[in-house]
């Protein structure tokens, strides 16, 4: 039985949204395995998750919640959830081009299921088509994305002309979106690096270093039955070679989840075969619904999706130790009776000792990327020095954002400390010792170059501040630059140059830290 009624749940969400100190818990409630979702029907789960997304839409989507919003747009087929996700995305601090493919995919997935939805009260279903709908919300989101969606302008425009395209009643929203995308005034403003930045909240791939991987002792003895009816333990199958593991169930009614996942696993197998690794790397598709997915059913499901099935490539159902398996993988799934009521997309790469070395969650994964990662695991040697792997493939733009202000800080330091007169040289000589005099070349041309770098730093910090809505770094760097310039004007303020350098350094560091810590809390 469900401990909390749906109305109590809705009240909890509203209370969490109203309390800034507890808002983070809203994101926790988007995890499928949360106990609150246990033993509820799929329609109830839709209402509950939709209400959480709408609460996020009111208070602003954070980086931590962003993945859940994008997941819904990527693979959602329920009108209410897709509409709520589209609305929630618009509360993210700023639009970026990264969101555009998600919105377009959602539009393609849902446009033939554009059921009217109501966001006014919890659990409300509209009986009027005048309200909102997923397509309306997605068009509004495209309008919000504006010039960031320039790449799909022709695609959006064609929605009007296509036979069986959007209904006439949506033309005004469509026109608004097209107008917003074309808006030239905004185009100039997005010329900065903000246009293509991958939001740091988009962590759907995780890698674990060898020494950070959890052992699989708790599930070693979990018993599986495969597609042919053969019985084997976790240890028997998963030890010895790396394995690509996907989770699915045959009664999943979302074609963008289980069916597609198994079809993609078949593609992984083909890539492995093409690389001559089909015997060195195993694949497994494990069902969430072992009581129903009997061997014959598993076999038919896999074969219909082109899956290769043999001793190294199996479809499995856990006949014993299902809960241990669920806990070990921290599966994103919940149930009503024996049936799945909601699950995420999840793919794991296990090393030769059955330990999880990488996972791909929620958002659709790339088969080639999974194969590459598995080959890396295959190449691991047992005696190699453990190397911590980045939690996700590092985003070069993010790295650049942090490095740039730091580099420029050193440039400012260079301007301040550059020896500009014989006295300066004397000072340096006293510091480094007379022995090094002949090794320090005097280059007057370096001074204007360093001034230019200081100005670049100033512009860079301003852009950072603008994108993160935190200008304190820029103010400090500006003050620092001013002090440095004044100190060099022979007004008797030479000693203040150090203050300028310190201000520049602190401002640049603050700016860099703002980028690293992610975007600020969403606006109300």
């Amino acid at each position, binding site marked *: 039985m469900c401990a909390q009624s749906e109305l109590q749940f809705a009240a909890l969400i509203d209370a969490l949204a109203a309390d800034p100190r507890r808002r983070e818990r809203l994101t926790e409630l988007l995890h499928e395995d949360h106990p609150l979702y246990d033993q509820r029907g799929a329609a109830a789960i839709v209402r509950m998750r939709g209400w959480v997304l709408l609460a996020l839409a009111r208070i602003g989507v954070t980086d931590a919640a962003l993945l859940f919003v994008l997941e819904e747009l990527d693979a959602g087929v329920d009108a209410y959830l897709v509409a709520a996700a589209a609305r929630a995305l618009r509360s993210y601090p700023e639009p970026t081009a990264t969101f555009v493919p998600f919105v377009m995919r959602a539009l393609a997935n849902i446009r033939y299921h554009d059921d009217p939805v109501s966001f006014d009260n919890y659990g409300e279903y509209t009986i009027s088509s005048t309200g909102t709908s997923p397509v309306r919300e997605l068009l509004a989101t495209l309008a919000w994305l504006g010039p960031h969606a320039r790449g799909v302008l022709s695609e959006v425009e064609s929605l009007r002309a296509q036979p069986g395209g959007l209904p*006439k009643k949506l033309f005004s929203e469509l026109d608004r979106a097209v107008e917003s995308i074309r808006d030239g005034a905004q185009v100039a403003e997005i010329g900065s690096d903000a246009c293509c930045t991958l939001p740091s909240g988009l962590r759907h791939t995780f890698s674990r270093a060898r020494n950070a991987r959890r052992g699989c002792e708790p599930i070693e003895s979990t018993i599986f039955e495969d597609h042919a009816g053969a019985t084997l333990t976790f240890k028997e199958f998963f030890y010895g070679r790396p394995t690509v593991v996907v989770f699915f169930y045959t009664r999943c009614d979302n074609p963008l989840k289980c069916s597609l996942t198994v079809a993609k696993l078949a593609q992984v197998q083909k890539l492995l075969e093409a690389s001559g690794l089909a015997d060195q790397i195993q694949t497994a598709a494990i069902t969430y619904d072992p009581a129903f997915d009997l061997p014959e059913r598993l076999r038919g499901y896999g074969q219909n999706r082109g899956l290769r099935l043999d001793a190294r490539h199996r479809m499995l159902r856990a006949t014993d130790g299902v809960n241990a398996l669920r806990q070990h993988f921290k599966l994103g799934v919940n149930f009503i009776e024996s049936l799945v009521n909601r699950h995420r997309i999840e793919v794991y790469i296990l090393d030769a000792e059955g330990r999880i070395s990488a996972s791909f969650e929620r958002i659709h994964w790339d088969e080639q990327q999974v194969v590459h990662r598995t080959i890396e695991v295959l190449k691991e040697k047992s005696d190699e020095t453990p190397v911590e792997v980045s939690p996700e493939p590092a985003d070069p733009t993010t790295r650049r954002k942090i490095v740039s202000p730091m580099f420029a800080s050193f440039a400012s330091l260079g301007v301040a400390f550059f020896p500009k007169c014989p006295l300066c040289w004397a000072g340096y000589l006293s510091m480094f010792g007379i022995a090094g005099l002949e090794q320090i070349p005097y280059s007057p041309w370096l001074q204007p170059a360093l001034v230019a770098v200081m100005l670049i730093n100033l512009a860079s910090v301003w852009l950072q501040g603008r994108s993160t809505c935190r200008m304190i770094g820029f103010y400090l760097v500006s003050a620092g630059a001013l002090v440095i310039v004044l100190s060099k004007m022979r007004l008797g303020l030479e000693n203040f140059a150090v203050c300028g350098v310190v201000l520049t350094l602190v401002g640049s560091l603050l700016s860099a830290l703002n980028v690293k810590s992610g975007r600020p809390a969403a606006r109300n």
Partner: protein
Amino acid sequence: MTTKKRKATKNSKSAKSTKASGKSKSPAKRSARAALSVATNARRSVEERVAALTEAPIAASEKEDDLQAVLDVLRNKEEPQQVRLATLQTLQASSFGAPAFESLRGDYIAVLRELATDPDPELRQRALGILARQKDGFAQKKLLEGLRDSEKALVPLEKALQLLSYDVHSDAYSVSREIVEKPPSTVAKREALRLLAADATAAPIFEKILRDKDEMAENRQISASVMQTLNPEKLRTHAREILLDTSEYDDIQATCLTALTQFGDAEAIAQDETLKTHVDKLSSEASPKVKQSARQFLKKYSG
């Protein structure tokens, strides 16, 4: 004049006027626009309107406005019930293929949700049926409310269970278990069992019913089918026992014979002389239904 006579006179008048106008065309030749003008004309007889609505051109119309006009008739509570039912049928046919329908889909769903609480029980049931097949959350919520509180029921309990069973992810399992435990009617119990068939944890319930000779034959047959889906090995064990029991019902024995013939362990059955001898006896002495199943069994296992 009675209402019936008045209606008949009106109908014949309108029929005459149609003929007199010389504009009447056979349904096969009528265009969607012409059929629509009849279907939406409240002054035409109910029969004429229903006939026009059920013609293919309207359902296949490529004009959004045509289908919108039909939808308006469906929404109008003042329209005769037969006409509204015919519009529902037309729109449902259109939903399968007419390109123009996609533009109306949202409106159609909204109208169906409205119809789900219409005073007319048939319209209500049909609308809920269409919505339930699409796994509509609104329909499921209303049906579940009706199961939990009979005063809120929009359709009979048995029908509600049947409609909820279209979605295996619905929240009707606990209610269904209660109904199986304390059934208000035999039909309700049957429908509750059919719904529970999707839940693998309900296998023990079906096993118990299959083995209970006091249970209705239909429920035991459902149980046998469900066991074949959820736990075929256990069904095979019970099927053998049922076949060897001379006091068992013919229908159940026939079902068990089919299960063993289609899905039995060929090696084990080939060595089971007791079973084969008994089935051989059934093939000559039992009812025609059992005889036929027994012969198929022997054909497979006795070569």
